[in-house]
């Protein structure tokens, strides 16, 4: 390691190192992106299948980003959408299923960056099961007068989940109604 570090040389070296790193990472991203996206798609299909046992097929409405779940006879048995909440450790991505235009079927966490042992408990079934059959309009943590118990020590994560589900659900329901009227 050279002791010299005068002038502009350190700046140039650091810039070169960062540039090389960027090229390498872009290349890696190019190789892995397709595979990662495919895995995510498969995962969503699987999650939808778990939430809606009678699901035979689903349609994805791209403009309003909503999955319409169909049974074998082609009848609509529910809806699903992705909700993203701002957690303690970044975005919490969830898949939310609806039975009809006001009741939640189930919630599955797709990805999150919460602290293991605290916020990461949002993936545990005792927490997500609380959403089953809940009415969208009444969604709130119990300390705010609702029925959802927060995870102790992880209020931010719990609130992010509840708030984002409620907001996104209300928005999707509105968009769905608008679309049906047209």
């Amino acid at each position, binding site marked *: *390691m*050279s*002791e*010299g*570090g005068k002038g502009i*040389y*350190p*700046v140039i*070296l*650091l810039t070169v*190192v*960062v540039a090389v*790193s960027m090229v*390498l*990472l872009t290349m*890696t*991203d190019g*190789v*892995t992106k397709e*595979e*990662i996206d495919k*895995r995510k798609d498969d995962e969503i299909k699987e999650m939808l299948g778990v939430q809606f046992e009678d699901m035979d097929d689903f349609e994805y409405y791209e403009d309003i980003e909503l999955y319409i779940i169909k049974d074998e006879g082609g009848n609509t048995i529910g809806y699903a959408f992705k909700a993203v909440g701002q957690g303690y*450790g970044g975005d919490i991505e969830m898949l939310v299923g609806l039975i009809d235009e006001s009741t939640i079927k189930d919630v599955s966490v797709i990805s999150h*960056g919460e*602290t*293991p*042992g605290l916020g*990461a408990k949002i993936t545990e079934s005792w927490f997500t099961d609380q959403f089953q059959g809940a009415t969208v309009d009444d969604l709130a943590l119990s300390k705010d007068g609702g029925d959802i118990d927060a995870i102790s020590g992880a209020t931010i994560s719990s609130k992010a989940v509840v708030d984002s589900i409620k907001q996104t659900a209300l928005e999707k329901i509105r968009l769905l109604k608008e679309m049906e009227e047209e």
Partner: protein
Amino acid sequence: MGNGLKTFIKGITTSNPVFILLLGLCPTLAVSTSVDNAIGMSAAVMFVLLGSNITISLIRKAIPGMVRIPVFIVIIATFVTIIHLMLQAFVPSLSKSLGIFVPLIVVNCIILGRAEAFASQNSLKDSIADAFGIGLGFGGAIFIISFIRQVLGTGEMEVFGMHVFTVPGLETNNMAIFILPMGAFMVIGLLLGLFRHMGVMESE
């Protein structure tokens, strides 16, 4: 004994990162819940350590002392991001169970420590030997800890879905505390004490 071999063995024994240098304890404690995780984590750390040691040793004469830490961190972060994306794409189940601890390899002090203390001052050959030694030292330590935790905590040993053995009586009365963080501290503390007492791993 060649210099490279000496460096390699030193990494596992007298400068074992976990038991002697007490570095990288956070991932050691957090990821040693099962042998699967321990093996996955060790492989990821080994990859990053090897990559960063080789790169830093190769360009060590060009790095000005003033910006060495930023340069080290960029190099380490690059390798970590590569392995993180690769795991997500090709071994998603492992990526899921290791979770946040893969990106956190960036701040794993073992790797920055080796860059600063070894790779930036030694030849390529020695740096590779050091990476293998320290990597195996870390892997061995985390393997022992996770083995004890998994056996006591679940009463059976299962590696990548393959059943290895069951401890009679323990499988029904498993001590779940050893899977919890508390158990990690107990196991690592007792092992440290044991190794000190036996004198097998004297620090220099």
